[in-house]
Structure formats: C-alpha cells, structure tokens
C-alpha cells in the first residue's frame, strides 16, 4: 500500500482537461520529482493532490497512515505575503492549525512543535523578525518549518528554489535531502531536471509523452534523454 496513489486521473478545470490518464504512486521515504514543460499541468496536479480542486475523473487515495489533510505544502510565494505583517513565529505556528479539532488557541504542544521546527530550520535568531523583511531563502525556510508543523509524513514542494541564488539554492536542496533522509516523503515540482535527477529516486514527467518510474529508467528512456538535452540547450542559450 502506497502513501499516495493516483489512478487514471484526468485533471483540469470546467472548460477542459489538461492531463488525462495519469497514474503514479508514492511510497514512504520516496523522493519524487515532478517535471514537465510550462503549462503541462504541474500546478494543476499539485492542487488536485492537495484537494484544492477536484479531479475531473479518476481517483486519489491515501494509505499507510497518511490522511487527506496530512500533506505539508510549500507553496510558491504569493503577492499577498510580500507586505503581510507577520512574525516568523506567527507564520510557523499557523502550520499547527491542521492538527486539531476546533480549539480557539494554540496548546503548549503546538508551541513546542513550532519551536522545534524553527530550530531545525536554523531560524531561531529570526524568530521575532517580520516575514516580509527576510531574504528569499529565509522565507522558504520559514514556510518549510510551517509545512513541517502540519505533517511529518509527506511534503509537497512547489518549485522550492525558484528565485533563489545558486548558493541558497544548493542549501535548499541539502535541507530537502536531509528531511528525506529522516524518512519524510518528498514530492517536488521542479524546472531543473539535473537537480531532480540528482536527488530524487523517482521521476514523474508529465506532458504529451508521460513517464513515471525510477530515475535510472528515466535516464535510459528516450523521453528522459530528450528532455535533458533540451534543458541543456536552453541553459546554454541563456548563458550565451
């Protein structure tokens, strides 16, 4: 039984399907990278897995002690958050809300949990700082700490390094790698096929010719080689 399995999903909105016949599953401890061109439906897939939108067809099931709302989620930054007055502590603590039946205030256990995750992400010196004043990398770590408050089982990361400089990007990948080593299942949406191949153990490539399987098989497949080559060319163009 997998932690998350998606069976023959059709994804999209009222006015049409974006993706059809999507089947994949995630086991405990997996590091799944979801790659694909812009507009291929990565974000739609993610919103569907999170339960923000319903699949048009097919089914999503959870297992191995993972419930529907037990996926921690690292979103891309929204414009609201850029001028939101909130301290690091308040943002991280808000991740604990999911844990409970309705109680108006946070318990001691919630606060201890938030503090642990703040320590884990190395944010203790920033705890009273305002979220909007932090650097991009620091903000991502705050949101990661919040996601860890919501779950210790699966993390879903939406382009976790977009907009970060190379040094911070490397740090971010290390942090994610460490969390995976601790046994947290990672699902990461990524542009960067090289990093995805380097850290992940499974790849889901969505688009016209979909692929789901181990990294080794992906690299051997035509789909994988093509995409890696395309990415390399694109990067060369950017550098030139």
């Amino acid at each position, binding site marked *: 039984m997998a932690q998350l399995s998606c069976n023959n999903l059709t994804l999209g909105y009222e006015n049409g399907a974006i993706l059809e016949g999507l089947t994949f599953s995630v086991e405990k401890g997996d590091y799944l990278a979801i790659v694909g061109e812009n507009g291929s439906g990565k974000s739609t897939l993610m919103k569907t897995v999170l339960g923000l939108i319903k699949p048009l067809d097919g089914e999503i099931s959870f297992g191995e002690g993972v419930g529907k709302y037990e996926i921690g989620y690292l979103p891309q930054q929204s414009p609201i958050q850029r001028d939101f*007055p*909130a301290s690091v502590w308040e943002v991280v603590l*808000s991740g604990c809300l999911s844990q409970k039946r309705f109680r*108006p205030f946070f318990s001691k256990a919630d606060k201890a949990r938030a503090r642990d995750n703040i320590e884990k992400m190395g944010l203790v010196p920033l705890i009273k*700082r305002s979220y909007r*004043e932090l650097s991009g990398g620091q903000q991502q770590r705050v949101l990661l700490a919040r996601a860890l408050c919501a779950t210790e089982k699966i993390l879903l990361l939406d382009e976790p390094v977009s907009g970060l400089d190379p040094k911070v990007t490397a740090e971010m990948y290390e942090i994610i790698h460490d969390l995976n080593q601790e046994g947290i299942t990672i699902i990461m949406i990524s542009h960067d096929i090289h990093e995805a191949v380097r850290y992940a153990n499974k790849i889901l490539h969505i688009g016209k010719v979909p692929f789901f399987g181990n990294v080794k098989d992906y690299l051997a497949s035509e789909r994988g080689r093509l995409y890696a080559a395309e990415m390399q060319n694109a990067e060369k163009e950017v550098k030139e």
Partner: protein
Amino acid sequence: MTEFFRTFGEYMTFAPARYALIVGVLIALCSSLLGVTLVLKRFSFIGDGLSHVAFGAMAVAAVVGLTNQMLIVLPVTVVSAILLLRTGQHARMKGDASVALISVFSLAFGYLLMNLFPTSANVSKDVCGTLFGSTSILTLSPLTVWLSAGLSLLTVVVFVIFYNRIFAVTFDENFAKATGVKTELYNLIIAVIIAVVIVLAMNLVGSLLISALIIFPALASMRLFKSFLSVTICSAVFSVLTAFLGLLLAIGLPQGVPVGPTIVVVQAVAFGVFFLIDMIKQRVRA
C-alpha cells in the same frame, strides 16, 4: 477652550450623549479588527460596496417607516456580503466589477426611493445625513444603542475566538485549505463580520465614510508594527482613541459639526503622524 469644555460638560449630562460616546468607541473598536485582513486580501473595495448596499437598504427601511431600521439593513447587508464574496471567489464576472455594479445601483435606488417617498420635508438633508453621518448618533433610540453595543461586543468575541484561523486564511488560503482548515467557513465568517461592522458604523460615520474607519487604523499600524498581533492591537487602540477624540471634538465644538467627518479627519491626521514616524525611523536606519 473653556467654552469647548462647557459645551461638552453640558452634553454629558444628557444620557444620549453618554450612550453615543460608549457606542461610538465600541463601533470603532470592532471596525478596526478586520482592517488588516481586508486590506491584504484586497477586500477593501467590498467594504465600500457594502456600505452603499446598506445605504439602499436604509432608504427602503425609511420609506417602509420602520422605527428600527437596523432590522432591515442588517440582514440585507449580510446577505449581500455573502453573495459578493462568492462572486469574488469563482469569478465569472470579476469581483471588483460586480461590487461596482451593485454599489452604484444601491446608491441610485436608495436616493430615488427617498425622493419618491419623502419621509420629511428636507430630503437632501436626510440623504446627506445617511451618507456622511449626521449628529444622529446623539439621537439613537435606547434599543439601537443596546443593539449596537451588543453586536459590537459579539463581533469582538467572534474575532478573538477565530483569530488564529483568520490569520491563517488571510496569510495563505491554499495552505490552510490543503491542511484541512475550513477556509470557506472562515471566509463566510469574515464576510458576515464585515457586514455587521458596516451596518454598525453607518450609525457613527455614515455610509460613505465607513471605509475610512476600517482601513485607516490598519494602514497606519502596518507602518510601524511587524507582527500580526501587534498590528491588530495597534489598530484597535488607534481606532478607539481617534474615535473618542473625534466624538469629543464633534460634541464640544460650538459650530455643531457632524460626527463622521470629524472622526475621519482625526484618523487621517493620526495616519499622517504614523507615516512621518515611519519615515524618520527609516532615515535614521539608513
């Protein structure tokens, strides 16, 4: 100055004036609470639209001849708030466009009604009073006073109970929803609170000036404070103090100025002070 205090002292011997002061301060308190959420969720225009709906409903209530107009105005505004929030979420028509439509229609409809079925000899004075707030807060019936005080306190209690959820839904609605927070429910609660606040605030400052009461405290506090809690507390204090000062001035000035504009001007000045302090702080740091 002595004359100011004498006029004020005379007024305070009347029970209605004391009520006005208490109710005014309570209304100011509860209208400041949701300011941050409204500003950041880009909902401030909904507040503006709703106040116009409340104006239309007020006109209907006046024509029907209800003694307690809140009985009509409150339900109509609450229902409109819920509808507007819905259209904002599933935008077939853009949220702000539908708000604009509804609000201008309500304004026109209300004014038309008041002219077709005039309830007093001076229609334009009535209209002006409803739009900009008159001295009507000094002539509220005891029932309205109790109702306003009760609703204000209820708003504060509901806000405190749902404070953590309101924060989560405002900061990152998708995350909250994905982790099982019932975001639709809390958006609904926010909409209902806004509607109640607007109907209450109409008594104090009139329907055109309500937005000021909601937005000024939040924007001023966001200049100086960095956490959600400190901004919320500062907004509440800002709002209570400026409303109190505004009411004192309005009651005490011998010219007999209307309450609403006085409060709004006091808030604008206080906002200016906050703005300056922020600028100076940044200079010092740089």
